[in-house]
């Protein structure tokens, strides 16, 4: 049976892993390659390197960091933040990323998803959607959650999938960094609307939150950062917790 994936996110700034609360107040949390190696040993299923400040500061994803991580780890590696063009995507993939995650750039020019899918395959193209509850829907924000895009998350997810995105990285801005649990309602709404996998992100604080998002939230994968970074909970403990409760997990020796 296909396992639900546990994905560790390394929010990287200037070559160091940081983790913000609601995208602000970044605090150092270690070197990317060191953390990546630890997670791999603990049985992490996938890694995401997110250059958190790239879009705002106009920087490209950190090729050196990607290269260092990808030369030692043989699990899927996605890179996001600052991927604005076909050339940016090519640089990340050439450095060793398997997937690139597009957010603001895809909102600005949705055809970029199609272009990249045609060149690298849909499996290499993730659309990252940052959504926030407004009135009775989920509004999509661009530029690290600072700029309303005017789009609805469910509609944008459908369009992005049609245009060639192979996976959706769905972040709840309301929950990000709060450790109060994933937004299961948002995740289920998007996951039910598309056939491509949905990675839930934002709000992981306890093991139960993962159980909730894999059941009520219908997520195919769940991503977290701070819950793993400070050794509060081992990846292995989380996976055995979920396995014991009937969630299909990849078992590693």
């Amino acid at each position, binding site marked *: *049976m*296909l*396992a*639900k*994936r546990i994905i560790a996110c390394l929010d990287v700034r200037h070559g160091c892993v940081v983790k913000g609360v609601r995208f602000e107040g970044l605090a150092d949390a270690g070197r990317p390659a060191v953390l990546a190696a630890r997670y*791999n040993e603990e049985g992490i*299923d996938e890694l995401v390197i997110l250059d958190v400040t790239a879009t705002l500061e106009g920087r490209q994803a950190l090729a050196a960091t990607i290269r260092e991580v*990808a*030369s030692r780890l*043989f*699990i*899927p590696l996605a890179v996001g933040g600052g991927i604005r063009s076909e050339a940016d995507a090519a640089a990340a*993939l*050439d*450095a*060793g990323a*398997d997937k690139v995650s597009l957010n603001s750039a895809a909102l600005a020019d949705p055809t970029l998803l199609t272009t990249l899918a045609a060149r*690298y*395959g*849909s*499996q*290499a193209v993730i659309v990252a959607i940052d959504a926030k509850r407004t009135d009775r829907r989920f509004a999509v924000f661009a530029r690290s959650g600072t700029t309303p895009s005017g789009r609805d998350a469910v509609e944008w997810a459908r369009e992005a999938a049609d245009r060639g995105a*192979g*996976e959706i990285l769905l972040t709840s801005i309301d929950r990000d960094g709060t450790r109060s649990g994933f937004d299961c309602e948002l995740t289920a709404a998007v996951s039910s609307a598309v*056939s*491509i*996998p949905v990675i839930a992100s934002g709000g992981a604080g306890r093991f139960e939150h993962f159980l909730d998002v894999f059941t009520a939230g219908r997520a*195919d*994968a769940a991503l977290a950062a701070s819950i793993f970074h400070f050794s509060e909970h081992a990846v292995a403990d989380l996976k055995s917790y979920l396995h014991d409760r009937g969630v299909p997990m*990849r*078992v*590693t020796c």
Partner: protein
Amino acid sequence: MIALIDYGAGNLTSVRKALAAIEAPVFTPPDPAALANVEGIIVPGVGHFGATAAIDARWRAALLDRVAGGVPLLGICLGLQYLFDGSDEAPGEPGLGLLPGRVTLLPPTLKVPHVGWNTVQTRRPSRMLEGIATGTSFYFTHSYAAPVTADCVAETTHSAPFAAIVERGHVFGAQFHPEKSSDAGLQLLRNFVSVVAAGRAAPAGSAGRDRQ
């Protein structure tokens, strides 16, 4: 030396890094003539079956000639699918026809594409499965899949069973990405490299002895 065929279907960086990690000597042949003295061939690939159209008549002839000459071949993902007669994904594009059968779309009972780690069940012993227990997980990402036939040595189920690993003589294939499947994936690549090394040790002309 193992030839890693680059026909523009996706990015080869990950495959190269994994082969480097197991110290397998590989190169990317610039033209079909460069296949003349290779000891093994890997056909990687991701994406649409139509991308195999980039493997033109000269490349096809060279690949089939080398395989007929006993050179072991490993197809990865789309590369496995290319070993078969063809695919519903691109009905006009023929596969290599080394394995009988046709690649079809996975039934949409579960989410398609099939993305993530799934277990592989052994159907019969294979040189590709040395050191890999039945039930081991590998990383998949695909929508189309090859049928479970006599050439299937390990199968995986996503809505329906499909061929995860195939072996027919010295022709092998993996539907998952061994280069992204951690230790188990590297073990499968090592197994292929061992087959290549065994072929090198065998007397000239005997490499085609495998059951066909």
